[in-house]
Every structure is written in C-alpha cells, then in structure tokens.
C-alpha cells in the first residue's frame, strides 16, 4: 500500500494529530519520571511542578479529540486511516489517565514528605515507575514504527509490573502490622504503588491499540492477570 493520500491535506492532518500524540506522550513520560524522583528525593517543589504540568496534558487530550472529530467529519477515514483515528482517540485517553496518576503520586508525595520515610519503599516505587515509563516509551515507539511485535512485548511486560505491585503490597501490609504508626504513610505509598500499576494497565491498553492499528484485530485477552492482591489477606 502507498503511504501517501492523493489528497495531501489529509496526510498533513494525520501528521499534525500524530505529532500532538507524541508531544503528549513525551509530557506523560516526563511526568512519570519526575513524580517518581520527587517521591524518592522528598522534593515537594518538584512534585508541585508535576501537578501543575498535568494541565498541559489535559489540554492536549482535548485538542486531539477535537482534531480527531474534525478528521472523521471532513475526511471520512476508512480502513487503516479509520483505525488510526480510533487508536489516536483511545491512546490520548490512556495518556491522559496516566498523567492523572502521576499527578496523584505527586499530591501524595507532598503529604509523605512531611512524614518519616518507610524503609526503602520509595526506591522500589521509583524502579517500578521507571519500568512503566520504559514500557510507555516502547509502546509509543511501536506506534510510530507500526511494530505489532514490540507492542506485544510491552503487553507481556505488564506482568512484571503487576508482580512488583504484589510484592510491594505484601511489604506495606507487613510494615503496617509491625507498627501502626506506619499506617498513614503506608496507605499513601500503597496508593502510589496502585497508581503505577494502573499506569501499566493503560500502557498495555496503548500497546493493544497498536496491535489493532497494525493488524486490524485486537490481541486476545489470554494475558494472565498477575495482580493477586484483591484476594490477598494478612496471614
């Protein structure tokens, strides 16, 4: 299939909207990393910057949705073009949610900075966030390269994030049982872990969209859910 449309303005529209997705992706990757660093370094000012930066992400999502609606209305996209527009709408929604989770991490960081640190959990959370950020980068790369294999790899890697979350969940539970004074901090830390785990799910959803974009069908839901905390109780 040829890459270019006969109507070159159609190509320009699609390129513009994809550039916005990439810009949004960059902002979100940055938000994840910055939120994790501010948590580990207990840097309230940095956390505040993450919170403020979320506005730009939200605005981009709105812009992308408007542009996508315009392309649908004016260009009546079909086949791969239609799948591209549908993918763009969903990916921008996923990115926006990931941005929200990063913002929520930053909010909790401001609270946690006032308390004494709990073990090395902030380091573990940063490693987990780093993994999710890497997955997001690969998911966006797979989107640009139309690489369904790389996207499938990202989908598979979400399992590791789920396992990291399981481990942290048990760790926080132990800390809280050991010393009730840890409860407030551990609750916040647990929500942060959960936020990062949910980011992983949204990254997975982006990767699934890439598979759909490239192949025309969504990957089957055979992926095992490694998050078992919903059935975990203190022993």
């Amino acid at each position: 299939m040829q890459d270019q449309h006969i109507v070159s303005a159609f190509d320009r529209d699609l390129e513009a909207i994809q550039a916005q997705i990439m810009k949004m992706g960059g902002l979100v990757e940055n938000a994840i990393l910055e939120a994790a660093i501010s948590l580990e370094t207990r840097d309230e000012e940095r956390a505040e910057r993450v919170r403020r930066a979320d506005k730009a992400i939200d605005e981009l999502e709105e812009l992308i949705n408007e542009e996508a609606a315009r392309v649908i209305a004016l260009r009546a996209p079909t086949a791969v073009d239609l799948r591209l527009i549908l993918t763009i709408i969903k990916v921008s929604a996923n990115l926006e949610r990931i941005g929200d989770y990063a913002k929520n991490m930053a909010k909790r960081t401001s609270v946690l900075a006032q308390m004494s640190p709990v073990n090395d959990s902030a380091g573990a959370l940063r490693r987990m966030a780093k993994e999710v950020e890497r997955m997001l980068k690969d998911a966006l790369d797979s989107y640009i390269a139309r690489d369904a294999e790389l996207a499938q790899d990202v989908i598979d890697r979400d399992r590791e994030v789920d396992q990291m979350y399981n481990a942290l969940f048990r760790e926080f539970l132990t800390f809280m049982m050991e010393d009730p004074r840890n409860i407030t901090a551990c609750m916040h830390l647990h929500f942060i872990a959960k936020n990062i785990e949910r980011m992983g799910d949204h990254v997975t959803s982006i990767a699934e969209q890439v598979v759909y974009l490239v192949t025309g069908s969504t990957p089957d839901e055979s992926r095992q859910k490694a998050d078992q905390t919903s059935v975990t109780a203190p022993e």
Partner: protein
Amino acid sequence: MNDMRIVERDVDTSENKIAARKVQVYYGDTHAIKDVDVDIADKTVTAFIGPSGCGKSTFLRCLNRMNDTIDVCRVEGDILIDGEDIYDKRIDPVQLRAKVGMVFQKPNPFPKSIYDNVAYGPKIHGLAKNKADLDDIVERALRRGAIWEEVKDRLDAPGTGLSGGQQQRLCIARAVATEPEVLLMDEPCSALAPIATAQVEELLDELKQNYSVVIVTHSMQQAARVSQKTAFFHLGNLVEYGETGQIFTNPQDPRTESYITGRIG
C-alpha cells in the same frame, strides 16, 4: 454481545442469486475482465467499487447481457442466475432483462407520460390482464420507487418534466414494474443532488427486501452506506470481495486498502 451488534449490516440470506465462474470479457483485443468468480447473494445490496476503467460496469452489464449490443465485445465463462446459464442459446435476452432490471447513471425516462413510462414494461411482457390491473401495477411500482406521492396527481404529465432526482426514481419504478428478481444499478446517484441521493439510498434499503441489488458506484461512501457486500475491482480483476464492514475497516488486500483510503495505487 453478538446481539448488540448493528444487525442491519448483516446479510439477510445465505442464498446466492447469481454465480459467476471464470468470467472473461474482451473488447476486441482488450482483456477487460479477467477470470472473475463471484457469488451474489439474494435480498442483499452488493456494491462494485474500483477506479475508472477497472471493469466494474462491464461486469455489471454482463449480468443482463447488455454487452451483447456491443459488436466487439466477447464474454466467456459462466454466469448463472438461479442456477441457469444466462448465456445459454435458449435464453431470450428480452425475457432475461425483464428478470434482471437495470437503472443507469443518467435518468433516461421515455419521452412519454409518467404513467406510460412505468406501464411500458408490464404491457410488452403481458403482465396486466386489464386496465385496472395495469393501474395497480403502475401505482405499486411508483410506490416502490418512493415517488408515488409526488406524481400521483399528474400521471399524464411527461416523465421528462420531472426533476433529476424524481426522474431517477421514476426510472427505478420503471425497472421494478416488471417484477424483476435482480436490479442492476450503474452509478444511479452520480447525477443527483444529496437529498435525491439519500432518497434513492433509502429506497435501496427497501428494495433489498425483495431483490438482489447490485450497484456500481464511484462513491465509496455510498457503497459503505448502502451495501452489505462489497467487491473491489482493479484492472479487470476482482481483487477482494467481502462483507462491507470488513472491506471498509480491515481490507485484506493492499490494493483495496490503497483505493478506499484514497492513496495513490
């Protein structure tokens, strides 16, 4: 979840009306249709799409032997309607065309009254026993053509005096008056305004309850809107044939993809 799907898009029947096997068409030395195999379902709208000169109209015209009128044109292979070879020597093309109606790109009403335009076919095929019977047939056909309300008070007025969209619906009424089983439409809306186009498309949806409709269209959006099955022709080959939703969301052949997404190809 399956019942949540948009059911109108489904093909209502699995019965095939037309079967074409290894059809070749030559115009002199030009090989216009190459080895086309296709099954066209009954009570379904099937759209033929493809770039200019791809053979879609040529193939459509094979289905009621309109190509017989072109001296240099030669048709090979088998085309069966209800299992009967329409190119068999015993088949009378006039009878065939009563069974396989056709509507053309340009509205072409006869220079006669609206009534006579519709009554002509039933008369020559002896479908009416008497005048009252013929009146019924004309009214029914005009109603099917979704034009009865607009012309019922001036059936004696000339058909050529109607607007373009009305003329085209009159031609559709004329085509259905002989109770055909297959309706072929070659670009029926290309000369019509958007509202008239919408009326014809609405009509197609009703006609498919009774007929096997085959439409050739340059408007891919129209094919997507009206048909349940779509066939893509390219350089005389039938490249891809499938359910319309699939063709427009996930075509399997790169040539189909290039064409329907408006890429050079």
